[in-house]
């Protein structure tokens, strides 16, 4: 997957987690948590969904890598390159 595809997958996963999510005006470089008003329990769901879909294990100490949309893409790019 390329960067754009990964970004789309992330938005799809978030939309699936939160039907009220509003992506209009979303800034890729600002924390997702503040912009979308998400809880840490919602972040766990992003992690679990990535694991379910791509058998991807994300250790707990690497969760901060998922803070913004662009940091997510940076973090996932090498892991999902061959998918």
């Amino acid at each position, binding site marked *: 997957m390329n960067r754009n595809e990964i970004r789309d997958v992330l938005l799809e996963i978030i939309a699936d987690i939160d039907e009220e999510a509003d992506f209009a005006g979303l800034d890729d470089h600002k924390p997702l948590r503040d912009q979308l008003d998400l*809880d840490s*329990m919602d972040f766990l*769901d992003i992690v*679990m969904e990535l694991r379910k879909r791509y058998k991807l294990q994300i250790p707990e100490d690497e969760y901060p890598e998922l803070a913004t949309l662009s940091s997510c893409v940076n973090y996932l790019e090498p892991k999902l390159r061959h998918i």
Partner: protein
Amino acid sequence: MSDYQLIIIGAGLSGLAAGIRAARFGKKTLIVDQHYRPGGLNSYYKFQGHLLETGLHAITNFAPPTRKKAPLNLLFRQLQLSRHDFPVREQLGSEIAFPAGSLHFSNDPDLLQAEVERLFPACGEAFHQLRRAIAAHDPFASTPWRSARSFVAGYLKEPLLENMLFLPLMLYGNAEENDMALSQFVIMFRAVFEEGLFRPEADMRAFLDLLVGQYKGFGGVIRYRAEVEKILIKDDRACGIRLADGSIFTTEALLSTAGLPETIRISGWQAPCATYSGKMSFTETISLLPNAVRGSIRQDRTLIFYSSSDQFSYRRPQSLQDISWGVVCFPDNFKGVPHKEFFSIRVTNPASYPLWRALDSETYAQEKTACRRAAVQASERYTGPYGQAIVHQDSFTPLTIERFTRKAEGAVYGSPVKIPDGKTPWSNLFIAGTDQGYLGIVGSMLSGISIVNRHLLT
């Protein structure tokens, strides 16, 4: 290879929520329940052709779908359920009635503030400060037990107002006698007074069907009439369960929502059962009334919490039932509920499990009838007269609760000592639900979810 990756004991709200989480992320999960239908404390039954709900008076933690951080919405997201599939009805308004006066509250917290200022003019500012302190307090931080009574008294310095505020919060979610843990008080204050009360537009059966459907949709398996006789332990790990019919299911992990005393009993855990046996139990009388008598009954209240004395002590009574305090619930008095042929009134009073237990079956039946009559009479002071108009009536005692829910001694709020991290002496056996610490329908479901998230998913 085990039969399941996770077995959950109990198809109550915490067990179902835990099951949905586990199954959603691919765990092969089995839920077992001794009863023939789900719900545990919050279930339903058919009586004389009417569907009657048990447990639920009103659900706390009301929030519109747009308030994303609200516990109710977080809960729905975690279960991947849509608030659109769950239309709700808000309370009309409720009341705390003491001899010295009444406080009215609704889902608008400003009303309670105004009511406190009306009845206790000297306490208005102090109550406002108390609310701010509650908003700032983190009830989920792991801190030692602190007295909610002393905390509240430090702000209000008005014992009557303190008693009035504690009555609904204790009655709807306190396992301890006399005092309450500050963290629990903060959770309950926000849930009842700041967020508010509502009920599903449909009945409890529809809500349970929604949950069971979601669980099964994710591939979860559920077995009813499956009474767990023993949790099987091998090499310091829980490896399965044996049911009363002798069948055995093996598993990689176990989650018990049966409460601590029951979990201790079936696992052989070396722990003092008495420490974990709650003393607060209740009787409840449900009366069905024809719509024609509505006019003579209070129609503008959803709940009336009452105490016939300005002194209020929350403890197990010295008699079978104590009618000096309790709560009257009008399950039909929610916004927009259409009038039907019948409506019901439920009266809940504190009761003593050991005194009910000591009765022979004949006396038990007689006392049950007498207690029903007494409960209705005591409530009529607040509702208006209805005793003569009752078409059908039923009631439960602490023994009924114990029989159907496995809550030891009928203690609906479980153990006075909670286990917040859900851990047991066995590394793959956890507890969730009432004895993990969160109470109420929203709380117990978040308990099941948080224990699965913390110990069983990652």
